[in-house]
């Protein structure tokens, strides 16, 4: 450990030690930029730090690029027709509303990954690392907390909607893990203490007193993490910003516009949360694993996404938040050009993603797949580069590695290069 510390340059070493101390004793985390002291010599693009917030929409199951954002002719063509959009590219008619705001998005048609199994592929898409038995990797929300500090005094810096809080903090302290919202319409539950204020506070003091010996006896990572969760939960209970989680404060019209379903309401909640200071929000949307009856299943699920995404972009723009909010559409892999029966199977070597707002170019297509949609033809974008690009847009010092608890230097996007051309 000492050797590793000595091999780092001074600000990094101090940063690591302070960070370690903060994580160990539950102190608030100082932003890395304040600790870093000297300026990095790296050139920063004009959009560096333009995106204050990230809304990451995760289409879980594997979005068929050919049937959505990268329509093909001939044998690969699916049940949907290609339609014109407000930009210089086409999408399929499963996404008619998307087509009307295509001039606001940056489409990437040359994503490349390697894992074709859902769980590890989702892990890979969220962390830019393959799952290993020896270490957990952080998602972009946790990297944000590392490089940029807490984004709000009382609200969490990272929230995930419609999923659990795993695939979150990785090797970083558990305080960087996202807060999980199981049902966006219910918002956050159990934030009111049982009984009166003074009763609750006395009870808490009693609990901490009675439990002190145990916490002292077991100097354990898991026990310490729990102390942190309780502290954060208590801070949240007192927060004036709690109403950000309450969708009932939105006008009925607005709620309907996003769609009366967990994904639509999740997108609306994401907008409320970033407006209140949450930096990174993931909204998960299930149901994209179309091995069979792809036509029917796309007809079920695509309109849900199409409506919520389009409303979100429009809403953010009308509120003047689109420039500072980077909306990401991600999925764990694409689907094969050839049909297997009436569905398509997993296809990680070529698929599509979307960036919108936060300094991303608008009405722009980056990369190209081959005629069938099987391989990337031009400008491949690895999942690591995708992450590095988003990280750079949000102002993370991606060249400075973080040190994992076992002393390994780790980089956001696994050290791959950001794609500068994605940003204006």
């Amino acid at each position, binding site marked *: 450990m000492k050797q590793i510390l000595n091999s780092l340059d001074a600000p990094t070493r101090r940063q690591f030690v302070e960070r370690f101390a903060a994580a160990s004793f539950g102190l608030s985390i100082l932003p890395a930029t304040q600790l870093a002291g000297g300026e990095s010599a790296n050139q920063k693009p004009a959009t560096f730090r333009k995106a204050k917030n990230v809304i990451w929409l995760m289409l879980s199951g594997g979005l068929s690029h050919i049937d959505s954002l990268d329509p093909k002719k001939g044998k690969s063509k699916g049940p949907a027709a290609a339609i014109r959009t407000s930009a210089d590219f086409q999408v399929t008619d499963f996404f008619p509303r998307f087509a009307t705001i295509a001039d606001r998005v940056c489409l990437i048609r040359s994503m490349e990954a390697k894992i074709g199994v859902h769980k590890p592929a989702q892990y890979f898409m969220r962390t830019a690392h393959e799952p290993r038995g020896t270490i957990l990797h952080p998602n972009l929300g946790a990297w944000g907390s590392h490089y940029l500090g807490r984004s709000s005094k009382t609200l969490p810096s990272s929230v995930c909607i419609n999923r659990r809080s795993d695939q979150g903090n990785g090797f970083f302290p558990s305080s960087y893990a996202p807060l999980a919202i199981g049902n966006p319409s219910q918002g956050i539950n159990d934030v009111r203490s049982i*009984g009166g204020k003074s*009763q609750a506070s006395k009870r808490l003091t009693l609990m901490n007193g009675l439990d002190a010996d145990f916490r002292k006896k077991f100097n354990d990572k898991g026990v310490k993490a729990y102390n942190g969760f309780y502290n954060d939960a208590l801070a949240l209970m007192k927060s004036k910003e709690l109403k950000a989680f309450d969708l009932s404060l939105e006008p009925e019209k607005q709620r309907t516009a996003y769609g009366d379903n967990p994904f639509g309401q999740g997108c609306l909640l994401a907008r409320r949360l970033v407006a209140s200071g949450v930096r990174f929000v993931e909204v998960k949307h299930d149901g994209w694993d179309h091995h069979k009856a792809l036509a029917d299943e796309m007809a079920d699920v695509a309109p849900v996404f199409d409506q919520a995404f389009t409303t979100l972009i429009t809403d953010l723009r009308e509120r003047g938040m689109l420039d500072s909010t980077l909306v990401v559409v991600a999925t764990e892999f694409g689907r094969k050009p050839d049909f297997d029966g009436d569905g398509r*199977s997993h296809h990680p070597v070529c698929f599509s993603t979307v960036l919108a707002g936060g300094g991303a170019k608008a009405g722009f297509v980056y990369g190209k797949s081959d005629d069938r949609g099987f391989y990337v033809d031009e400008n491949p974008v690895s999942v690591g580069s995708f992450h590095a690009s988003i990280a750079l847009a949000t102002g993370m010092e991606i060249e400075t590695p973080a040190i994992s608890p076992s002393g390994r230097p780790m980089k956001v996007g696994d050290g791959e290069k950001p794609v500068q051309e994605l940003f204006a």
Partner: protein
Amino acid sequence: MSVSPRTTSLCSLLLLLLVATTHSHADDSPDASRRIDAIIRVDLGKHKLPPNPPVGDIPFVRRVYLDVIGRIPTDGELANFMNDRRKDRRARLIDDLLKSPGHESHMFNWLADMLRVKDDYYRIGKTWTFHTWLKSQLHQNRPWDELVYDLLTAEGRLGENGATAYLLRDASMPLDSLSNTLTTFLGANVACAQCHDHPFAEWTQRDFYEMAAFFGSTAFDRVDTRKPAIKLRDDRFSKANLVTLLQPNMERVVFQQGRATEFPEDYAYSDAKPGQKVVPKFITWEGERRANVTTTHPRQLRNLFARWTTSPRNPRFAAAIANRMWKKLFGVAVKEPVTDLDVLDDATNPELLKFLAQVMIEVDFDLQEFQRIVLNTRTYQQQVSVTPPEGENFRFPGPLLRRMTAEQTWDSFVLLLRGPEIDEQKTDNAPLMTRLVFPFEFTHDRQGIEKDREKIFEFADSLLENEKGKKGKSGRSLFMKTTKRRKRDAWLRASELPQPTPPTHFLRIAGQSAREVADDGSTEGGITESLAMMNGEITKSLMTSSSLIQATSNKNTQVEQIALLYRTCLSRLPTEKETKQCLAALEQGLGMGDIAWALLNSREFMFIQ
């Protein structure tokens, strides 16, 4: 323990073991337990590490209750143990707990995470027959090899044979199904080879397809019951009605002549051509002989695969389940992750892993017996260690300090609310499915089903005849009515609740798996969980109307009441200092419910010592 007829290959060690197990108690616990201890001592010695001191009786009782029956002990159970003056009381307690209904419930949760047990499979419908089948296997303590063999070879309709649900789970993705089968039951890290040669391990895509070929003639394709339902529907029965009625009948696993596995169109290697028929071939591991494929009859290939998989001679089957069970009891496996046993020598203690596999074979895959041997080791009965720093191997000086699983937490809460009768309260929804099974043959394809309309409708009418007057049932609930859940049904053990519970349920917040992928339960915790622990509905009930609070009110003095709360929540007596702290809190206006709150929210409650 009786010797089953399957036990044909008894070696001398097994004989020794059998002799030992007939009177196996604390001081003369099974030889296998002693051998496990010895292997660990040697390994600890090699690394100049001391074993942890023995664990005291009280933490031991709490630990073993949680590990074997998945909940904390009651005050009475704790007292029974302490009043037992026999020298072998620990071994006796282990035996009793392994035979109790709580153990079945706990094992069900463990398997449900591994096998992704859900109430509903996407567009396949209800799978309650599977839950009931699995629970009955656990009730009989069915040997693991037989249980897995049944899963892999199951045939017939979902409504009749619950075991078919294992393959139907991945009906539309046979390759994913195989990948899960190989990683779960054999620890073969093949997932990557589904699409290309594994970048680090030995597996090739060809290996993967050769294994898939064993399932080539098995049809477990999803039948989309919506289409026949549309064909059949009329004024009385809607599409949704009929989908529910057809699913237990049409979802099935069958042999299909003429089907075969082919290499995929994007097969990129020169040793086969895309579209070429794949000849089945068993994978093998370094240093092991490859098993022969002894049949060419497509009808028998799947059974052969299942025999090979579950054989004691399979180089990984016993090791995989032994490694998983060890993790269950010690908090970390001998080889992590449990889904990758490609190189046994990569285990933290390879000799231990190999011996555990041998023990598993020698007990004929009897999981209760295997657990009994492990629970009777000195190693298990030593004090816990804290999690070592990342990258450092844990060498088992004792078990790890672990957080309770979501199910253990919930089941302990429900115990405190309602008392130990919760272990006996079981739900069985399978009859709701089996009653829908047609007592006649019918045409399975979408076109032909119309010919059987009369028969099907007649049967449907007979189903509804006994339910006249029950108005207001529509859609799916016409045929698959669920009994109305009473309020108290909410406080059942996790194994008796919906699988999995909805995302906002306490169990899910505390880390219950969504059952989408295998081994996905989590004990990491988070802010939402802390909120639920402090302010949630179950905590509120515990503070007011629980059997815990009721029992306290029967005690005369505050000191006695505090002591009871401690015994019930933390399985121990309070120290003098703690009693004083509690008394002072009562002085300040707090009640017994508040003290219970403080104990249940403590780290001491959540972490298993």
